[in-house]
């Protein structure tokens, strides 16, 4: 492609953006609204997944040891527990510590130590974290088999429900983002088809005077990319504003909610939206033109 041709193409793209100002504004608005919805859904999904992970990371398996074990035997069990596949972290809680924790939970008013006297009914125990939350039930079962372990508790019943819920949350999130993404693609494609349709006469003249298909496509491609980038930029700007505001408000009023604040992850969402917008604009233009190039 010659340099002068490149100049015509760039000039044509900008001229068309300017001369079809209303169409351009409409396309940019459509693009940015679609991407704003997509971006919101995306951040919502990332947050719910973050919440799911946070809930899952709280999961613990408590392995209570048999009362007859000596302290030494109890401490030696650590190695056996660490050897169970899928176990991430094992920490020992002695019966004394256990009692202290119980006391802490009841508060100052009632002294458990006084009530119980000298006898501590609690066994020594290990608190165990799994590498993968989903495996908690199986790991618990394996730990039950370890010699010296009396009972295993991990919130049986609750955990399975929680895991089913977080799993559902993840799938639903992906489905939601994909569905909204497809909707955005459709909306953007329709808008671009309108802009191309408005210029079908110019395309047919170019075809008949012998312009090559790529030469005809280029200004549309460029225009699509510019519109896509502008729309996405606008969407990202709005999203950033709304999300930051939301995070601030939630941190004050609902501070127990684990809000996603991983800057680099959120930035990568914004970058992806810009990339998606720009490439949708480009691809949409080329595809919409196809029909008009067949002269």
């Amino acid at each position: 492609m010659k340099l002068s041709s490149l100049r015509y193409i760039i000039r044509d793209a900008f001229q068309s953006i300017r001369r079809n100002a209303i169409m351009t504004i409409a396309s940019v608005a459509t693009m940015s609204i679609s991407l704003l919805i997509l971006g919101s859904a995306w951040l919502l999904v990332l947050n719910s997944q973050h919440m799911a992970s946070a809930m899952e990371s709280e999961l613990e398996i408590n392995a209570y040891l048999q009362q007859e074990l000596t302290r030494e035997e109890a401490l030696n069990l650590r190695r056996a527990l660490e050897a169970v596949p899928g176990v991430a972290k094992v920490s020992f809680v002695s019966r004394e510590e256990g009692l202290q924790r119980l006391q802490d939970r009841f508060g100052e008013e009632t002294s458990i130590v006084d009530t119980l006297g000298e006898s501590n009914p609690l066994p020594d125990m290990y608190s165990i974290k799994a590498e993968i939350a989903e495996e908690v039930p199986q790991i618990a079962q394996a730990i039950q088999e370890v010699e010296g372990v009396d009972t295993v508790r991990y919130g049986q019943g609750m955990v399975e429900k929680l895991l089913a819920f977080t799993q559902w949350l993840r799938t639903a999130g992906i489905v939601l983002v994909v569905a909204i993404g497809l909707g955005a693609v459709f909306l953007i494609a329709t808008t671009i088809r309108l802009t191309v349709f408005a210029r079908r006469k110019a395309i047919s003249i170019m075809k008949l005077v012998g312009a090559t298909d790529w030469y005809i496509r280029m200004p549309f491609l460029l225009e699509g990319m510019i519109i896509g980038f502008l729309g996405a930029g606008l969407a990202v700007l709005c999203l950033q504003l709304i999300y930051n505001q939301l995070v601030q408000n939630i941190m004050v009023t609902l501070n127990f909610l684990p809000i996603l604040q991983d800057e680099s992850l959120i930035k990568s969402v914004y970058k992806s939206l810009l990339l998606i917008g720009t490439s949708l604009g480009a691809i949409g233009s080329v595809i919409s033109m196809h029909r008009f190039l067949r002269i």
Partner: protein
Amino acid sequence: MIQFFNVSKTFYGEVKVEALIDINLHIKKGEFVFLVGPSGAGKSTLTRLLIREELPTKGQLLVEDRSLLRMKGKEIAYYRRKIGFVFQDFRLLMNRTVYENVAFAMEAIEMPAAEIRERVPAILEMVGLKDKLHAYPHQLSGGQQQRVCIARAVVNDPKIIIADEPTGNLDPDNSWEVMTLFRAINKRGTTVIIATHDRDMVNLMKKRVVALSNGRIVRDEERGEY
């Protein structure tokens, strides 16, 4: 230069239309040919075959000894650069000036900017519009618009000019202006093919006349009449 060998064109839509049937036609370089006949006789279809907008259903069509049937993609684009097409409805870009409309055809085939700046005003002077360079099409009369369309068709110096009802939307005075222009272009050696049902014009011009009726050639005369 242009050779139709037993060319037929059938459109298969809701109803089958045989637009052209067994056409044999030879047009030499530098000729001036009128295609005449009533609406639906096949004149437009014939011109559309020549600009490779449609393909023949049967037969062979050669232009400068090259078959139009085997061309594809880029070849079609380069072939069309040899042809200037003039439309009945002018098909000018309404949001571009006269100058830009003509320059558009040169830019589309990637001509250098310096050549465009030189050639466009020269061509517009030839068609008598040198004082309308920066007017928009809606500010021009029908005849002037058609002359812009002709300027656009000849600006890339094509070997063949094809016009489909170029005077169909014009009054007699403007029609005559446009025809004179075609004759001048033909005098420079360009082959000119005009589809028309403008009886008076054809009779005045005394050129070769190919008459079509129901998709067949019914008459072909040198210096003929409608």
